[in-house]
C-alpha cells in the first residue's frame, strides 16, 4: 500500500486552524516584546546610522536674496542673489558649502563694505521653501523678507539643505587621511591574528597535550586579560616602552606609539578568546586517531600535521576570525597607544567627538561594519561545523608524561604567563608610584580619582551599577527571550526572525552601536530621547551589545532540556510560566549565572559602545581610564584600570562560590 506521499491527494477545503491557548498568546506576545526590544535598540539605531551616512548637507547660496538700504535706511529695490554675490567677491570657498547637519554659514563676507556699526539696513529672505537661515538662534524658514540692522545682520547664518546620496562616501574615499585607515586596520588585525592564534595554539597545545605542572594556574592566567579593558595593556606598554619607559631601549629606536603597540596590546587582550576556542577544539580530539597513527608508525611530526592540525582546524579558523574581529573593532587600545597611526574605530571617535562630523562618523562606521560582519559570518559557519564534530562519540586523548616535552611546554607557558602577568603587574606598580620615573616611592596618591578628570570614584561606582543592572536585566531579557524562541509552538517565521535579530549584535562593533544610539536616541523627534544621557541608555546599550553570546549560552542550555516538558505541563493544564519558574530556570541556573557574570564583566570593561553615550553624571570607570590617560594622568588611569581588574576578579570569585552553593542546594538531583 506504499502510495505516493503527495499533499495533492488531500481533499480541498480549509485547513484546521488551531485555537491558541492562553500560554501560546502569552509566549508569542512575550517574544514579540523582546523582538521589539531588539528592533528598537538595534535595528532602528543602525538604520538611523545608515541613513545618516547617506545624508549630505549643503548650503545652496542661490536660495538666498538680499537687499541693502542707504544710510537713511531706505531700500531702492535692488535684489542681490547670494550666489551672484559670491561669484563677485569669492568670499566663501565652495568647499565650505558642503557641511554637516549642524553647518552654519555667516554671510557678512559677501558684503565687503559691511560694518556692524553702519546705519545701513539689510533685508534677507529665502527664495524657496527649502531654504533656511538663522538670525541669532531664531530659525527663519519662510520666504518673506526679514529686515535687520547691521548689528543683527552680523548674526545671520545660512543653514544647509539635506539631500541623500553617496557624496559622503565619495568624500571619504577621496580623502587619503581617512581611507588609509582601512589599510591600517586590516594590517593590524591580520598581524595580531597571526601572532595571537599561533601563541594561543601552542599554549593550548601545551596544556592539553603535555603532563606539565601548574596547568590550573596557567589556565587562570590565560583568562585574566578578559577582566580588564582593552586599553589597559596600552597603558602598561607606555610604562614599559613609552617615552619614559623602563625598557625603551629594547625597541632600538622604534616607537611603541603606533602599530607595534597596538599589535602587542591586541595580543594581550585577545589571547584568552583565542585560547578558549583552540583549547576546546584540542580537547575534543579523538585518542583513537592517535593510536591509529602510532600503530602505523607515523612520526610525531607527521602525526601533528595529519591528526592534530586537521582536528583543530575549525577551532583555529574560528579563533582567527574572532581575534580579527576583536582587533579591528577595538577602540580603547589604539586610542591609548596608536599615536599618529589611524585606525577605523578611532576615526569614528575623532570624526564624532573631535570634529562633530556625524555624517563622516557614520560613513566610517559603515566601512568598519563590513569586515566585522564578514569575520562574524565566517566564524558562525565554522562554529556550526565544530558542533557537528563534537557530537561524534570520541575517546578523549590522554597525554603521557614525557620529560622533555613537559619541560618545553612549561617553559613556553611560563613565558606567555609572564607576559600577561607582567602587563598587569606593571600597571599595578605604576599605579602605586608617586611620580614616574622621578620619584619611585610608593603612595596611594593616584587613587585620589576625585582630583582628576574622568569622573572620580563616582565613575567607578557607576561602572559597578552598570555591571549589576546589565547582569540582572540582561540575563532576564536574554534568557526569557531564548526560552520563548526555543519553546513557542509554531510561529516559525517569527522565531526565525528573532534568531536572526539575536545574532546581529555580535556583528556590530561597539563604536558603531554607540554612534547609532546617538543618531537614534538623541533625535528630538524620538520620544525615547528621555533616556539619553542616563544610566538606562548605558544599560540598554550594554545588554544589546553583548546579547549574542548570552543568547547562544541560553539556547545551548535550553536545548539540553527535554523537549516534552512543555507538552507534559500543558497536558496537566499548568501554565507554562509555572514550568518556566519551577523547572526551566532552576535546571538552567548554572547557565543563567554564566550569562550574568559574562554581562557584568563586559559591562565593566567596555569602552567602545558607551564612549558616545555617557554623561558627566554617568561616567564609567573604563571611560575614566580613557579620559585620564588622554589628560596625561596615566598613573591614575592605570590605577583605575586595575580597580576594574580586581572588581571583576572578585565578581568571578563570587560567581564561582554562588555557582557552587547553588549547585549544592538546588541541584541535588544531579547527584545520584
Amino acid at each position, binding site marked *: *500500500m506504499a502510495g505516493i*506521499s503527495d*499533499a495533492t491527494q*488531500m*481533499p480541498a477545503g480549509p485547513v484546521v486552524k488551531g485555537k491558541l*491557548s492562553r500560554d501560546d498568546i502569552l509566549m508569542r506576545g512575550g517574544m514579540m516584546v523582546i523582538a521589539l526590544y531588539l528592533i528598537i535598540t538595534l535595528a532602528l539605531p543602525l538604520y538611523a546610522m545608515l541613513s545618516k551616512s547617506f545624508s549630505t548637507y549643503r548650503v545652496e547660496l542661490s536660495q538666498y536674496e538680499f537687499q541693502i538700504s542707504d544710510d537713511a535706511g531706505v531700500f531702492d529695490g535692488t535684489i542681490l542673489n547670494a550666489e551672484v554675490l559670491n561669484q563677485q567677491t569669492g568670499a566663501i570657498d565652495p568647499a565650505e558649502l558642503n557641511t554637516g547637519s549642524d553647518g552654519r554659514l555667516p554671510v557678512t563676507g559677501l558684503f565687503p563694505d559691511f560694518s556692524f556699526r553702519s546705519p545701513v539696513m539689510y533685508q534677507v529672505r529665502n527664495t524657496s521653501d527649502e531654504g533656511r537661515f538663522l538670525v541669532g538662534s531664531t530659525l527663519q524658514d519662510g520666504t518673506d523678507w526679514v529686515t535687520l540692522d547691521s548689528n543683527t545682520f552680523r548674526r545671520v547664518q545660512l543653514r544647509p539643505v539635506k539631500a541623500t546620496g553617496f557624496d559622503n562616501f565619495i568624500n571619504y574615499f577621496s580623502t587619503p587621511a581617512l581611507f588609509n585607515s582601512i589599510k591600517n586596520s586590516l594590517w593590524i588585525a591580520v598581524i595580531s591574528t597571526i601572532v595571537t592564534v599561533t601563541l594561543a595554539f601552542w599554549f593550548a597545545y601545551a596544556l592539553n597535550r603535555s603532563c606539565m605542572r601548574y596547568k590550573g594556574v596557567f589556565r587562570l592566567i590565560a583568562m585574566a586579560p578578559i577582566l580588564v579593558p582593552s586599553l589597559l595593556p596600552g597603558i602598561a606598554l607606555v610604562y614599559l616602552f613609552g617615552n619614559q619607559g623602563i625598557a625603551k631601549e629594547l625597541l632600538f629606536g622604534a616607537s611603541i606609539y603606533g602599530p607595534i603597540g597596538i599589535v602587542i596590546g591586541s595580543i594581550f587582550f585577545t589571547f584568552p578568546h583565542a585560547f578558549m576556542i583552540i583549547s576546546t577544539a584540542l580537547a575534543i580530539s579523538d585518542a583513537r586517531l592517535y593510536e591509529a597513527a602510532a600503530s602505523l608508525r607515523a612520526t610525531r611530526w607527521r602525526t601533528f600535521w595529519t591528526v592534530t592540525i586537521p582536528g583543530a582546524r575549525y577551532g583555529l579558523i574560528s579563533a582567527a576570525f574572532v581575534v580579527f574581529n576583536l582587533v579591528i573593532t577595538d577602540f580603547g587600545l589604539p586610542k591609548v597607544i596608536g599615536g599618529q597611526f589611524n585606525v577605523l574605530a578611532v576615526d569614528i571617535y575623532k570624526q564624532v567627538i573631535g570634529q562633530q562630523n556625524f555624517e563622516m562618523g557614520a560613513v566610517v562606521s559603515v566601512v568598519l561594519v563590513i569586515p566585522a560582519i564578514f569575520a562574524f559570518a565566517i566564524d558562525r559557519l565554522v562554529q556550526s561545523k565544530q558542533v557537528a564534530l563534537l557530537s561524534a562519540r570520541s575517546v578523549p586523548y590522554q597525554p603521557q608524561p614525557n620529560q622533555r616535552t613537559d619541560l618545553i611546554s612549561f617553559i613556553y607557558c611560563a613565558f606567555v604567563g609572564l607576559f600577561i602577568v607582567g602587563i598587569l603587574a606593571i600597571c599595578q606598580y605604576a599605579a602605586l608610584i608617586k611620580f614616574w620615573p622621578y620619584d619611585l616611592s610608593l603612595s596611594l596618591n593616584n587613587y585620589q580619582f576625585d582630583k582628576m578628570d574622568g569622573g572620580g570614584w563616582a565613575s567607578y561606582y557607576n561602572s559597578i551599577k552598570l555591571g549589576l543592572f546589565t547582569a540582572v536585566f540582561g540575563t532576564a531579557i536574554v534568557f526569557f527571550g531564548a526560552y520563548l524562541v526555543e519553546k513557542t509552538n509554531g510561529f516559525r517565521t517569527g522565531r526565525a526572525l528573532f534568531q536572526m535579530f539575536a545574532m546581529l549584535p555580535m556583528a556590530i562593533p561597539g563604536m558603531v552601536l554607540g554612534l547609532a544610539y546617538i543618531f537614534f536616541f538623541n533625535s528630538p523627534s524620538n520620544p525615547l530621547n528621555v533616556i539619553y544621557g542616563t544610566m538606562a541608555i548605558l544599560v540598554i546599550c550594554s545588554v544589546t551589545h553583548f546579547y549574542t553570546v548570552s543568547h547562544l549560552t541560553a539556547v545551548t542550555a535550553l536545548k539540553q532540556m527535554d523537549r516534552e516538558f512543555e507538552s507534559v505541563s*500543558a*497536558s496537566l493544564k499548568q501554565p507554562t510560566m509555572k514550568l518556566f519558574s*519551577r523547572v526551566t530556570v532552576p535546571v538552567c541556573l548554572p547557565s543563567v549565572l554564566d550569562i550574568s557574570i559574562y554581562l557584568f564583566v563586559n559591562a565593566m570593561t567596555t569602552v567602545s559602545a558607551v564612549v558616545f553615550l555617557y554623561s558627566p553624571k554617568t561616567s564609567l570607570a573604563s571611560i575614566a581610564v580613557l579620559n585620564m590617560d588622554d589628560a596625561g594622568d596615566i598613573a591614575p588611569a592605570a590605577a583605575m584600570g586595575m580597580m576594574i581588574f580586581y572588581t571583576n576578579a572578585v565578581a568571578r570569585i563570587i560567581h564561582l562560590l554562588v555557582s557552587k552553593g547553588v549547585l549544592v542546594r538546588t541541584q541535588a538531583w*544531579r547527584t545520584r
Partner: protein
Amino acid sequence: MTQHHASDETYLSIDNLWKAFGAFLALKDITLAVKNGEFVCFLGPSGCGKTTLLRAIAGLDLQTKGTVMQGGKDVSNLPPSERDFGIVFQSYALFPNLTIEKNIAFGLENTGRGKAEITARVAELLDLVGLPEQGKKYPAQLSGGQQQRIALARAIATNPGLLLLDEPLSALDAKVRVHLRHEIKELQRKLGVTTVMVTHDQEEALAMADRIVVMNHGVIEQVGSPTEIYREPANLFVADFIGEMNQITSTVTKGGRLSVGEKTFACHEHSFSDGTPVVAAIRPEDIIPHEEGYDADDPNRNCIDVLLHEMEFLGSFWRCRLRNERFGASELIADFSINAVRRLGLGEGRQMVIELPTDRLMAFDRPEAS
C-alpha cells in the same frame, strides 16, 4: 475509582484526518473510533505516522484536515491545555529538579485541591504504581522502569479521560519492559481509562492492546483484536509485519487452489479469480510435521515432502529450514516444538513430510515488483 471495562460507546473518534508536512503526507484520510475504556495500540514501522496521529489527538501537532472528537466534544482545533488527557513519553520527561512527589503533584496544583488532599492523592498514586517509599527521591535516583511508573502516575493523577502513551517502554531493558507492560495493562484495566499507546514493538501491542491499529505510510492497514490481526491479517504488509510469515510466490488456479511449483494447495478462502498472481503465506508455527511414511500425495491434505536442511535451537522450539525442488526456489521456515522434534526423531538432512493446514494457508495480493 470504579472498575469498568470497555463499553461499546465511542469515546474518541477520528474522522478523515490528514496531516501534511509541506508536500509530504504523514497521515492520509485516517478514520478511527476508540471505545470508552478501550486500550488501543498504534503499531507500525518507524515513519508510519503513528506518533503523528497520537500528537494530533493530543493537540501537540495539529492535523492539517479532519476532526477529532473526544467524549462527544469536538476538540479538533483545541490546544493541549484545553483537552482532557494525560501523556507519557518515551523519555519520561520527569522534571529533574523536583522530587517524585512534586512531579506527581505538579498537575494537581491550581486545581482547587487542598494541600492535604494533594498529599493524599500523591500517596495513593505512589501506592498504585508500586513505589510507595520513593516520594522524596529525585528522578535521577530511580531506575528507568521506576521513572516510567512515576511518569504514568503523574499522567493519571488528575483522572484524565484519555491516557496517551508514546512508546513508553522503548527505552527500557527487555526484562523490565515485559514486566512493566503487564503492570500498565493491569493499571489501565483497573482504572478503566481509555488508552492509546504508540509502539513499534508488535509483541508489546499483542500483549497489551484490546485492539491494534496497524499503520504504514500514513494509512491504517488493519484494525482488529490481537488475535484477529495475527490470525487473519488483512494484507501482506500486516501478515509480514506481525510475527513471522513464509511467503511463497504462487498463482490462483481452478477451484481457488494455489499453485506452487508443480503442486497445488487448498487454502483459506479468498476472493481472487483464477490466474491471479498471489503470495501464498503461512506462519512457521502453523506447519505440521508428520511421521515417517506419511503419504505426501494425499489429495485431501496439503502435504509435501521436504528435506530438513537446517535446524536452529531457539529455546522453546526448533526453527527448521525446509527445501523441496518441486517448490521452486523458495525455502520454508517451520517452527517445530521440542516435543515434536523428539517424537518424530527429526534431524538435519532428514527427508520428511509436512502439512500446510488449509485454513492457515492464506493468499495475498502479490506486490508489484519495485
